[in-house]
């Protein structure tokens, strides 16, 4: 049972963030809007269980990503994260050159969004959970039903794909400037 006055304030405050989170998972505005509404509906119903000692964002984000994962499964967009999990763990002998943050800085928000949206769900979901919701590796592992190391592999893969995608975009831009 919720205190509707308080909940209304929280709804206004957090709706954009919840919507953005759902958008990250589900990729379309329509699905994200439905998911955000459903998230707040569930939160409203279970508001009595919310403990004020915990940040509200953590609580509502947990409801949101649980719901979004269910939606992804229903839509058939959720690949089994365990597929070839062992094969994915590569033992690199030396670190690769790292430049995602530099690439991010050079890209527009739209291109970055497109790059993240272009990731397969099994990489995109842990990436969002880690860097948007700020869950720990262990928490993501529990949520996805896998282990901590495998979460690391998924995140590394996500970053590698992101680097490639952003690097290609940067190369294309440089090429265009040269032509001009």
């Amino acid at each position, binding site marked *: 049972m*919720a205190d509707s006055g308080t909940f209304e304030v929280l709804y206004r405050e957090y709706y954009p963030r919840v919507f953005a989170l759902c958008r990250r998972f589900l990729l379309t505005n329509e699905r994200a809007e439905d998911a955000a509404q459903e998230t707040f509906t569930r939160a409203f119903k279970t508001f009595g269980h919310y403990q004020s000692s915990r940040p509200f964002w*953590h609580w509502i984000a947990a409801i949101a990503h649980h719901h979004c994962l269910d939606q992804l499964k229903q839509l058939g967009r959720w690949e089994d994260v365990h597929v070839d999990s062992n094969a994915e763990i590569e033992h690199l002998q030396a670190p690769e050159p790292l*430049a995602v*943050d530099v690439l991010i800085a050079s890209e527009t928000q739209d291109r970055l969004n497109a790059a993240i949206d272009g990731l397969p769900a099994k990489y995109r979901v842990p990436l969002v959970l880690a860097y948007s919701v700020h869950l720990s590796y262990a928490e993501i592992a529990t949520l996805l039903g896998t282990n901590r190391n495998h979460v690391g592999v998924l*995140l590394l893969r996500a*970053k590698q794909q992101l680097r490639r995608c952003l690097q290609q975009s940067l190369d294309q831009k440089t090429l265009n400037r040269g032509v001009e």
Partner: protein
Amino acid sequence: MSHPTELNLMMYAEEALDPTALDQTGEAEWRTVQNHVKHCAICRSAVEQLRQEARGLSSALAMATSTSIEMPETRHFQRQRRLRNVTLATIAVTLTTALVQWSWKALFEEMILGAIAWAASTWAPSIYTVANQIFLFLQKEGVDMFNNHVALIITVIGLLSLYGLRSVWRKPGAVPAVLLTLGVGATLIGLPPASHALQIIQQEDPVIVAASETINDTLLITTKTATIHGDIKGNLFVAAEDIEVTGDISGNLITVADNVTISGSVGGMTVSLADAIIFEEASIGGDLWLAGDTIKLDAKSETQGNLASFSSSLTMEAKVAKDMLVAAERVLISGEIGRNLNVATKHISLLDDAMIGGDIIYRTATKDRLVLGDDVIIRGEIDYQGKPQNVQARNHFVSDSFYLWELLWLVGAFIVGWLIFTLTPSLGRVELGDGKEGIKTAGIGFLVLVTVPIVAVIIAITVVGLPLSFITIMAWLTAWYLAKIVLAHLIGRSVLAGRSDKPSLVFVLFIGLIIVSIAINLPFLGGVLNLLATILGLGLMAQLWLNRGGSRDPEVG
């Protein structure tokens, strides 16, 4: 030197290899990476780059989050929920209530009461004896306990009140509401005491007030045997196993006992609860209120007022100046009744000496259950009104008193409601959830309604817990009264939710109370709706109390 993998470096950089949260293998892995990074400039740089990358991703995703998003109307979101949920909750709770009522009737009335009646018939003492024993126990132990703990009780109530009021001082209307409450409380406490003093006699040995003795106070006696031959210039309250009153009582006489015999005169009214009540040459100035198994008033007794009697058998040979109202299995009347005789019984006989100044209104299974002697005098008419259970089906909407009482209830509920919603604003924001939540609320309300008095009685049995039991019962009765007001406020808010401006508390309460008042008085459905309103209101209050920690404004993360 072989470098750790990028995966290991990334997990190390993002503290996913925290040694405090890992097993021995994990701890070893962390130490290996840490030792390597300490001595390898390339990996140190890689770790720093990975950390920067993580920060870059976080800020990039945060930037994406802050982009402008068209937000749907909040009101649409909530209003849709409320209408749907209230409808579902109403249906669900109505079904639950019907089930509970059916179960209650089937289980409690038919089985449990049947079992109690059977057990009582074999060994248990009569209900009057039990009531008398409980009264004696509570009177003796309870007064002592209460006196010993009265300071503590008042302090606790005071502290709880202050704690409850701590958050409302700055709310609009809080100060006048608190002042009004304090004013009413102070007025009640400061009311002048009774004009005469109270004398209390508590002892195991028989209490005898001799014929030569005159007591000029109101007298309260609790003992096993009380014999009052002397005069009492005040009221007399007696709780004992056997009571005999032959003296004159100028005030009222109230007795609770196994056996009561009254032979003296009583200036005021007489109220008696006992197994056997006998009046012999008694003279009563006021009304007689009697409840017992066997009641007998002899031919030389009289009352200047009315007689109301509830018993198994009644033998009435006395003179009653005004009306007589009787509910009994067997009624035998040979006395004189100044006005009407109103009786519900299995058998009624009016012997030859009987004289009825007004009408006889009687309810029996069949009309011929009234037996009249040949010389009975009836100045009015005889009106047969069918079976006793049909009495309740009479239309109370046609009586003025019904509307007067409803108006009084409305005014009282309105004032109390205004006070409690001003003093505890959170009570005015409770919501009924959807169907499942509605059932939960009703369930909690039903539990509160049923279990709290049982718990209070159990606590009282421990004697030490008597004050706590008293407070519990008081709180329960208060909550019972407030339940319908809380629900009325919720209904008022729901009805007025569509308005563009925020309706005032007065308007919300007024609308809600009117709706509740009409609903609980509807023919046929009123009883169910009354129970429903009570358990829902109790459930809402209980849930608010249980969730009081979670209902505060949560910190924004």
